């Protein structure tokens, strides 16, 4: 129990220290970055140590393999993001150094979501990750696109939070408590499901729909990613999303897993997933801005992950957690390439990536690797994630969903391949300058790339870790 506590506190106090001493760091910008990096890496280690812990912190934060794995994933994401920021500190106004604290708080909030055993803690986690994200997205306060993005993100996020909160209160009314177990017990004991539960469930699904950017609640995503400083777009596209999708899975299966309720949310999620994948991919097809393209691609990716939640089984949740890990590393990697290249003077249009293979082959190679992983090419992390998610859908009897999901991968190939073609098969104009990528960014990217290949080639190991973490949940899922 202590290890998880230490890990959480590391994130809390790591961020706190940076904030408290922020004014002193103006002259030594490397110190807060080092604190942030150190805190996230140490937290990663302590989360790993807490893998086999049991019980709950203050009764609210589950101690099990799933929360530990979630913590590890998000600490890693935070560390990679901080490395990406360190590569180009001036761009992120890091002289004021609070970015590092906010990055840690996004990771902390997402970790709390995954570990939450209680609606209130879940809400706190969501809000913590969301507020930090709003600030990060609007971090270029003099840039109208950045502020516009933050404005949109904030307004829609706040509406979503209101939906969630109202939904939680209705579920509290129907379930007689905030604890997941309590709600599940009440549902099991009552012969008829209380009527107030249904609007509660609907509100929660809509709220999560906004947070996860599921279609039709996804309108804010591409604007937010395009306007946000690139490294923060990377973080926001991954941290709160992975946290929320796993948290949604746990909440639904554990608190609302009774058969007659599960039928309803399963159907709802099936249609949300189908819509999200299809619309996300279709809209990504004709994007010309690389960040918008990645934005729509991440909408579609989240739709695919939601397939695993819809399966509502141990296998499905395992697949969700695995895909979350694979997607996190891959997407942070892809955005980091964009960030590093825009630091090197490249534009953010797909056109600007012409001939990158000849101008700077390491970054082109890495970007290709990340894009192919997102597309789901075998031996890369994304493929294994898709394989597990699809298999869980088939096993849960959701054949239509599985087939639509597979057909969507074909759609997705088109826009990922388009970028690859620009990089390797199109020659750059004569007068383009050569590209220099910061070594710190390259290091972070190399770490991510190795991760993508390893997880993709030997997915069994990561899957076992994730599956092991789900053991405590098995009794709740046994009926499916």
């Amino acid at each position, binding site marked *: 129990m202590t290890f998880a506590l230490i890990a959480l506190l590391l994130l809390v106090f790591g961020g706190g220290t940076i904030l408290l001493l922020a004014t002193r760091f103006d002259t030594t910008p490397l110190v807060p970055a080092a604190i942030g990096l150190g805190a996230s890496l140490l937290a990663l280690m302590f989360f790993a140590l807490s893998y086999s812990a049991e019980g709950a912190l203050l009764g609210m934060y589950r101690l099990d393999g799933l929360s530990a794995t979630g913590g590890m994933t998000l600490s890693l994401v935070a560390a990679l993001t901080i490395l990406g920021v360190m590569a180009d500190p001036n761009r992120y106004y890091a002289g004021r150094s609070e970015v590092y604290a906010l990055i840690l708080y996004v990771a902390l909030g997402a970790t709390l979501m995954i570990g939450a055993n209680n609606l209130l803690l879940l809400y706190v986690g969501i809000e913590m990750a969301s507020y930090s994200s709003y600030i990060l997205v609007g971090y270029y306060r003099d840039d109208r696109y950045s502020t516009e993005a933050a404005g949109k993100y904030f307004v829609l996020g706040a509406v979503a939070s209101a939906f969630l909160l109202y939904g939680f209160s209705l579920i509290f009314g129907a379930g007689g408590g905030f604890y997941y177990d309590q709600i599940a017990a009440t549902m099991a004991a009552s012969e008829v499901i209380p009527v107030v539960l249904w609007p509660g469930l609907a509100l929660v699904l809509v709220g999560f729909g906004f947070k996860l950017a599921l279609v039709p609640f996804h309108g804010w995503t591409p604007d937010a990613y395009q306007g946000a400083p690139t490294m923060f777009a990377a973080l926001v596209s991954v941290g709160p999303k992975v946290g929320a999708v796993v948290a949604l899975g746990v909440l639904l299966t554990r608190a609302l897993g009774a058969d007659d309720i599960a039928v309803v949310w399963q159907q709802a999620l099936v249609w949300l997933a189908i819509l999200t994948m299809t619309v996300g991919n279709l809209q990504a097809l004709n994007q010309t801005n690389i960040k918008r393209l990645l934005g729509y691609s991440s909408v579609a990716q989240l739709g695919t992950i939601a397939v695993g939640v819809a399966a509502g089984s141990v296998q499905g949740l395992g697949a969700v957690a695995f895909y979350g890990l694979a997607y996190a590393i891959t997407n942070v990697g892809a955005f980091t390439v964009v960030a590093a290249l825009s630091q090197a003077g490249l534009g953010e249009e797909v056109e600007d990536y012409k001939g990158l293979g000849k101008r700077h082959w390491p970054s082109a190679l890495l970007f290709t690797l990340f894009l192919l992983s997102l597309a789901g090419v075998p*031996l890369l992390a994304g493929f294994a994630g898709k394989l597990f998610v699809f298999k869980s859908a*088939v096993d849960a009897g959701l054949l239509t969903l599985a087939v639509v999901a*597979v057909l969507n991968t074909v759609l997705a*190939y088109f826009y990922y391949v388009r970028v690859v073609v620009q990089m390797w098969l199109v020659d750059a104009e004569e007068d383009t300058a050569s590209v220099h990528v910061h070594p710190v960014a390259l290091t972070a990217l190399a770490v991510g790339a190795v991760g993508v290949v390893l997880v993709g080639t030997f997915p069994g190991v990561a899957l076992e870790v994730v599956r092991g973490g789900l053991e405590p949940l098995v009794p709740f899922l046994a009926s499916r």
Partner: protein
Amino acid sequence: MISLLIFLPLVGALVAAFSRHAALSRWLTLAVSGVATLVSLGLWLGYDLVAGGFQYLQAYDWIPSVGIRYVVGLDGLSLPFVFLTALLTFVATLTEWKRTDSGFFALFLLLQAALTAVFTALDLVLFFVAFELVLIPMFFIIGVWGYDRRRYAAVKFLLYSLVGSVFLFVALLAAGFVAAEGGVVSFDYRDLVGNAALAANTTTALLICLGFIVAFLIKLPAFPLHTWLPHAHTQAPTAGSILLAGVLLKMGGYGMIRFNIALFPDAMLTLQPLLATLAVVGILYGGFVALGQTDLKQLIAYSSVNHMGFTLLGIASLTAFGVHGAVYQMVAHGVITGLLFMLVGMLSVRTHTRTIAALTGMYTAMPVLGGLLWLAMLGGAGMPGLAGFVGEFQALLGAFQNPATTAFAAAAVIGILVNGALMLWTIQRVLQGEPTTQMRENYDLEDLGGLELAAAAPLVFLALLWGLWPPSLTPFIDAGVQPALQAIANVSDLAGDLAGKVTGF
């Protein structure tokens, strides 16, 4: 040993990719593919024909929680293709000896590794992974080092193949689940062969079979899914065309015999008329369209559609002679068309054109190159004494034997005529006569050098060997297609009489 054939090129590819010296990558590629050629030849000679079945097996758990394993093995069906993969990589490297990009050679090694894995994989998911992995190096080989319209050709090749892969992916997952019938899921080919749920006459089996066949028909390629091929072949650099024609297309026919016939015999009986129709259309259409081509490389590309039509016809006949002939035809086509593309590549380097009208009298100008091209063209026309004849003849014979496909075979014979006319006419246009004065004055029409002769020699030797002495290949193919024929014999009385050993060749 098989894993060595897969991982040695893979390691080589990594080294070559990060090497700054093109010469090192070049020699490394030559060495690795040379060693692989010898090793696969050794495996071939060491294959125990009496025992048959899969040999040199290696099996390890890969993703145990989903039932995916790493299983590789060789049988008579895969041996010729594994050997061809290594050999053609070797000669392709010799052909492109003047290239100075490390990346080019790294991609060839990667391609070799992936292709070897395709032909040796006995786990369906492993097969799929390798099948997909083949696309990536070929995409870049065409797209980066190809001719003028390389980008269009590369993207078309990739997207066609990816669409096929998706069907394959769904189908093989479904095959695993359906075969398990709620039990332990396995994707091991040896567990799936003879599975009653897959071999049964059900809609499910038919749909799964269709999923496989769409992917393989695109690869083969069969009419009307062939439209990627002329572009890819024409735009690829010479070495890319050699591998593309020599081995990549064979993944389609190999897959159909290995998976479609052996796993879904009943569904294949249902699909027989469709496949036979596509085959005949491909034979005639490919031949006639080839007649109209003005670009020599594109002409050979369309003649491949014609040749692969015979392969599909042999497969569709579902008889011993037919399936056997299909494999023979694929092996022969690999050698002969590989040689054709190589020689045309060498020709166009010298003449700076591939337009047929501009090329006349090439035999007079370069007797050695012209003579070899003459031989390869006749091989393409299916002249007896060269490898192409045996396969085409067996495939047609098989199709005649089965009453269900007799009519198709009769129609296909016209295709032989067209193809013969095509090759003879091309010989007349390109090789005979005198070179134009413009050609003589502007270009140095030097005959083949030692290196180029060394690249062509193994292919010429094999074309003659397998043409004059089929027993050097027949028994192995015979052993390799037995599981497929057995599966057919189990579901069809008629074809059962025709299944069995092929004798007389």
